[in-house]
């Protein structure tokens, strides 16, 4: 019990420290973290408008893009930040109660918090523009974001452990992320794809996450193929592998 309390204390302290070191001394730094994904979504929305592409029925372009881009960037940013958590905070392992896992979790929490905030800002914006939103299930949206965060954290943990042994991981990471990005249905509803293509995309757990968020946001959005249990297995598998890597990596960290 005391151990858990210390752990929370440590993660809280790391979180505040992370905000300071990452976003600088003024609040403008943090504002940028929220504005960046908004610009990203705005840019794609402009493309959609320019090429006359339509969002699937029952959705609007901005909302549809948001449900794709926010979860995928939550996943990607979390994995990326968690991967570097130990290498950029080595000095903190100097304090006995700071464990490598705390460094990873603090970063994961900060990313999750930021992306939920982005989501809320966009939902508010959409509500102002389109009138009061008809959200299907807030719980499903939150569950989707939680799964995206869990996937990012567990993958980040694995990469973090592997990067102690080899720097190949850091070099491969961006390419792998790009593949995951294009195979997760950010710009399509998987329901509109041919079955073989759809089955391929459904191997990617992020496809399930995005479809889950969409089902939560848009009333009447089909998403018959969503399986949160499948995503959970991925998270558990990666977390198990990542945590066992961390145990062996700890010994190696002492030597360097």
């Amino acid at each position, binding site marked *: 019990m005391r151990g858990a309390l*210390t752990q929370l*204390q*440590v993660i*809280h*302290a790391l979180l*505040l*420290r992370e905000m*300071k*070191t990452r976003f600088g001394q003024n609040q403008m730094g943090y504002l940028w973290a929220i504005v960046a994904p908004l610009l990203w979504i705005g840019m794609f929305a402009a493309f959609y408008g320019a090429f006359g592409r339509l969002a699937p029925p029952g959705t609007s372009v901005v909302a549809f893009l948001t449900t794709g881009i926010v979860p995928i960037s939550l996943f990607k940013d979390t994995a990326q930040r968690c991967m570097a958590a130990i290498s950029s905070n080595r*000095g*903190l*392992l*100097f*304090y*006995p*109660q*700071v464990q490598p896992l705390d460094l990873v979790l603090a970063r994961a929490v900060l990313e999750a918090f930021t992306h939920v905030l982005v989501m809320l800002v966009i939902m508010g914006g959409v509500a102002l523009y389109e009138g009061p939103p008809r959200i299907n299930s807030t719980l499903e949206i939150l569950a989707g974001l939680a799964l995206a965060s869990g996937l990012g954290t567990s993958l980040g943990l694995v990469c973090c452990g592997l990067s102690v042994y080899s720097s190949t991981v850091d070099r491969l990471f961006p390419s792998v992320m790009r593949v995951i990005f294009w195979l997760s249905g950010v710009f399509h509803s998987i329901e509109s794809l041919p079955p073989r293509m759809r089955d391929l995309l459904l191997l990617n757990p992020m496809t399930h996450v995005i479809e889950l968020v969409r089902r939560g946001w848009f009333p009447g959005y089909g998403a018959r193929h969503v399986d949160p249990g499948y995503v959970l297995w991925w998270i558990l598998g990666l977390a198990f592998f990542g945590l066992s890597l961390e145990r062996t990596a*700890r*010994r190696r960290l*002492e*030597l360097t």
Partner: protein
Amino acid sequence: MIELSEVTKMYPTTTGSNLVLDRVSFSFPPRTNFGILGKNGSGKSTLLRIIAGIEQPDSGTIRRSGVVSWPIGFGGGFNGSLSGEENCRFVARIYGADIDDVVGFTMDFAELREYFFMPVKTYSSGMRSRLAFGLSMAIEFDVYLVDEITAVGDARFQKKCRRAFQERNDRSSVIIVSHHLSTVRDYCERCAVLRDGKLLCFDSVDEARVAYEAA
């Protein structure tokens, strides 16, 4: 109280492995300032890090009761882009101490003046270690682990450090590792010599001197 039993630690080297601690079993006497003497590379810093819990032994166990500090001495564990004050806040938080008390005490003790509010990367090494030492004094530890205290500040500041330790002598104790006999004599009631991976204990510093100088 700190108790080591059968603690072994080795590091791989290009020519096999270097046995730094060889089945060390020792119980540190409670409420006693204790010195550990060792030549450079004898493994005293490793021993201190294992006592602190930053490193794990290859085999054997350590039992600690009470709050044990991190190894105090060199200014490790600070983030260079944060100010001295912000670093103090962080450490106060992870130890669950009162933030304002810790910040106030450290600012007073470390004598950094306006530098206290500037990024630590702008500090000289002396300023860093003064900050590290002041901060460790601001938190109530039952046992202070000190790595080579002579590294901290000038003669006047060292006097201040010694006074600070004396003031809390009834509440807490110190374990110092050093290669200076004089440091150990100044601070400690009992001491041991670390040699060839073994810890040899002596009741007085003078008895230890013979063994240390023979090493």
